[in-house]
């Protein structure tokens, strides 16, 4: 385990892992996980893999559906050794999932390495104004933990949290933006898409603009999952750019999941436009786009996104989602940290092509009615 962590930390530190190295590490990690994570081992066995037959390609690694975290404790260590636990909200089934970590070292290293690369290429020490769950109020929010880590390690020590439940502390944010302007400190406004909409609505209602200090940037994440109001990203970014005085290319979307330890960010080359943005993964995270039978599809073909995250050492290496996307070549690969031939990812969102054809009830309507 220690040797495995050391290899992972080295890869994270180097921000480099070519295909053979990735596969070698993935196979070792898979072997480790099926030896220590019984539910995953059973699932892998049902897919034809065990210690005697390891996957030959990363596309062969059995990927558990993200919802499996609601079904079983997917961990390679005993509960007593849990160092941190992140929880997903219950959706259709009404049950939440839980992603437990045996150590925060890998998670934090992965978070910081990606963030440094993708949000702080200039090495700026920003002030972090967070419109994401405050970890003091939501200790099991992975997003809150991630931003707390970033703010602590990369911030100037004077940031704050402005989202309390679904309530936005606009007065506090306005006050602290003014202070940042007075101090001449650039900020990172870290926000869920939904909170950003709420902020812009609140500013509009008060007839306010809230120009952020020069050099500031916005990290947007989270989409609109589970929300009744959805705003097109094009309109959202345009409004944010206008009202917060930040160039569109300084608004960077992060894509992650509670069940992952690593994150994707908008590639540098695609930030000059709002849509489509191309997401890029750090070297220890790979996206595979699959068809309905779980087979990898060619670049450009839309399918469900599967993640192979080597930083998920304590849980499950491969996770399958219902998020839709397509792999595309990424320009400026070196700056984005992509290896030769490694693709970027265009997210298409869950609503893409989701029109129902019949008069049948659907799961989301039922959920609303039950609520």
């Amino acid at each position: 385990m220690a040797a495995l962590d050391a290899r992972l930390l080295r890869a994270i530190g180097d921000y480099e892992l070519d295909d053979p190295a990735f596969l070698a590490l993935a196979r070792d990690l898979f072997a480790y996980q099926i030896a220590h994570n019984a539910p995953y081992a059973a699932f892998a066995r049902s897919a034809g893999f065990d210690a005697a037959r390891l996957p030959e390609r990363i596309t062969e690694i059995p990927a558990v559906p993200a919802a499996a975290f609601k079904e079983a404790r997917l961990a390679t260590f005993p509960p007593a050794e849990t160092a941190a636990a992140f929880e997903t909200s219950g959706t259709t089934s009404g049950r939440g999932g839980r992603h437990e970590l045996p150590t925060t070292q890998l998670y934090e290293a992965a978070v910081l390495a990606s963030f440094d690369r993708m949000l702080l290429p200039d090495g700026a020490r920003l002030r972090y104004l967070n419109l994401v769950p405050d970890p003091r109020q939501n200790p099991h929010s992975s997003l809150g933990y991630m931003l707390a880590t970033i703010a602590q390690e990369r911030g100037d020590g004077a940031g704050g949290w402005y989202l309390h439940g679904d309530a936005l502390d606009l007065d506090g944010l306005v006050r602290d933006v003014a202070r940042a302007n007075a101090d001449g400190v650039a900020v990172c406004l870290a926000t869920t898409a939904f909170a950003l909409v709420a902020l812009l609505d609140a500013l509009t209602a008060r007839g306010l603009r809230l120009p952020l200090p020069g050099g500031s940037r916005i990290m947007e994440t989270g989409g609109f999952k589970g929300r009744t109001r959805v705003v097109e990203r094009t309109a959202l970014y345009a409004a944010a750019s206008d009202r917060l005085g930040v160039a569109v290319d300084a608004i960077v979307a992060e894509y992650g999941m509670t069940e992952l330890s690593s994150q994707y960010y908008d590639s540098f080359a695609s930030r000059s436009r709002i849509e489509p943005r191309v997401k890029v993964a750090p070297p220890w995270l790979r996206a595979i786009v699959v068809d309905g039978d779980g087979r990898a599809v060619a670049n450009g073909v839309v399918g469900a996104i599967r993640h192979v995250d080597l930083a998920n050492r304590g849980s499950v290496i491969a996770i399958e989602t219902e998020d839709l996307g397509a792999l595309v070549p990424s320009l400026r690969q070196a700056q984005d940290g992509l290896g030769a031939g490694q693709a970027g990812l265009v997210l298409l969102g869950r609503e893409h092509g989701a029109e129902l054809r019949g008069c049948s009830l659907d799961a989301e309507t039922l959920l609303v009615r039950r609520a």
Partner: protein
Amino acid sequence: MPEARGSSGALRTLPAKRIVACIADAAKRWCDADYAPRLRATAAIAARLGYSTPVVDYALDRLFGGATRAALESAIASELGSVDALDRVAERRGAPAAWARGVDRVVIVSSDTTIGVALVPAIFALCAKCDVVVKDRSDVLVAEFFATLAQEHPAFAGAARARTWTGGDDPAEDAVLGAADVVVAFGGDEALYAIRARCATEARFVAFGHRASIGRLTRDDVAEFDDDRAERVARDALLYDGEGCLSLHALFVEADGDALRRVGATLGAACERVALEFPGGARSPQRTAAVAAYRGIAAFRAAGGHGDVLRAADVTLVVDSPAGEPPPFLPRVVPLISVTGDDAIARYVAAQHLPVQALGVTAADALALALAEQIGAVRVAPFGTLQTPPIGGHHGGAPRVADFIRWIDRE
């Protein structure tokens, strides 16, 4: 673009039986698979919805094949006492003589894409001599059928109009809805709320919301579950890819263990055969991903020793699906839920707040009827017929023609 207008009264001078005959004759022409308008409609529906041609053909056969003169007259008479009541005051035993006078303007809006869903209420509204405006889909099935009606009798050209228009904030739609005496609407909750809000205060609003249908195999059914019975269940599950309110969305089986697995295996084999007759339609990437995710989590449970996942052609059966979960409502995915009896089914439906349309059974006996009553279902039907209701049936528990008339009593 629809226009708000007064009533044409074009059908008022025709006897109801003449109208019925014209409709039945037009429907008969549409039963011919080589009838040119039907060929066009079939291709357009298949292109729009992605359903396979055999499925669209089957739907049109059932839709028009059921609209016979006898069936229409029988449905009307069962609700109004006689077809003649639509023409003049008719005597009624133990009640004042009365005239079932059709309202002037009926608007039918389907925000769903189910094949021809608007046609049945349109037919009955025309039988009641109403002017009918139907919001048609881009395949213009309704418009094509109305054109056939106009060939049967020119009065239909004035009375039956099909239009395509964009929904929501189209002011022309406001005008049409606001002028209607009766508005029939098919759709989800949001669409129905929006449509109802735009109707006149005294307009009759007949809503058909999204619902689910379930099937039940008793212990005796399980013992006798053979290929033939399984094929009937499979037909209910697979037609329209399980996306209709009458599609089989969950099968409750009074069995567990090996008996349940045997039902699953028999049903899986039947699905393979039925899928040849009714190939699956095109699926959006999102629906494909949702099916894969549902199958994935079922496989995860199965690996842990709970339940099983069976693949049969493009069908997924989840055997021993958790009783605490709602049906997935995914194309060609059927959960088999183990229950101890009808009370357990009722508890499931209550716990999941499931609005049940139809209950599929082997025999529509008293126990099945009692279960239907308990779970709020409006139809009990033998397996194999779940998705082919008779035209005179009370879809959604509503009358077929009575909503389109007002009674004028002569005392």
